[in-house]
């Protein structure tokens, strides 16, 4: 039995990472897990895409008019950290319910707690493996059927 994906059934994920190789990798991991992916190279670009940049009109459908089902972001980024990006998302009435996943190459308990307390869905250690992302994808399906 084959599963047909309709536009709305495929989760759309925004992946944010300043490292080019990591961006390519997370994009592939998500696509292999049947997600549609948009990438951003830093927090500002991510906010722009989400329609959250200052002076941008807030609307339910961001940027290109496509809804985002999940945001996955690196923690250490120049300018705006993943934590700061998480904060901005949680402060937005429109986007606060979008699950945010934080990735980091460093296993620092304080950092992890800080992010989870701010409302991050998950904290994942880099480098990401396919099994990690497949698990995440499984959770996303649950989210979208709510």
């Amino acid at each position, binding site marked *: 039995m084959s599963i047909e994906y309709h536009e709305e059934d495929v989760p759309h994920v925004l992946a944010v990472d300043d490292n*080019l*190789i990591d961006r390519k990798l997370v994009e*592939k991991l998500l696509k292999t897990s049947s997600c549609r992916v948009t990438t951003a190279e830093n927090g500002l670009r991510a906010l722009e895409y989400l329609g959250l940049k200052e002076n941008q009109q807030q609307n339910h459908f961001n940027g290109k008019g496509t809804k985002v089902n999940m945001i996955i972001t690196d923690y250490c980024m120049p300018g705006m950290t993943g934590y700061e990006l998480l904060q901005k998302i949680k402060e937005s009435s429109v986007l606060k319910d979008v699950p945010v996943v934080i990735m980091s190459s460093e296993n620092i308990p304080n950092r992890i707690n800080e992010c989870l307390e701010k409302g991050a869905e998950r904290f994942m250690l880099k480098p990401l493996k*396919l099994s990690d992302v497949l698990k995440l994808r499984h959770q996303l399906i649950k989210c979208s059927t709510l």
Partner: protein
Amino acid sequence: MDAVSQLQRQFVEHATSLYREGYLDDQFTQLQKLQDESNPDFVVEVVTLFFEDSEKLLNNLATALQQESIDYKQVDAHVHQFKGSSSSIGAQRVKNVCVVFRNYCDEKNLDGCLVCLQQAKNEYLLVRNKLEALLNLEQQILQAGGSVPMIT
């Protein structure tokens, strides 16, 4: 033994030795798992990006460490990037040098940093040569109509 089998055996031997000698770790296997018919050049693409990115980073590091007044935060930022990308593609030995390198940055230890830069360069060149040889073998196998053995 026909040409394809010979190439496949060479590939397995080469890949196995790379893992055994610590040049590559499991993360490289993860990359190979992501390659499929819809994206048959994925590994080559990522590895090529890594080569380009690494060469830029090594140049930036050399420049940063040549300054009269060294900005160790900047040096550390470059090493952090290098550590990240080498870790993501499974270039274990390069990543390990980066870990030590970052400690020297924290200590603002110039000599330590310079030694690490040299080591990082050496390890990078080694893994680059070995990966190029591996991917070359892969290409030959595919061109000869064979399939690439998966190393687990």
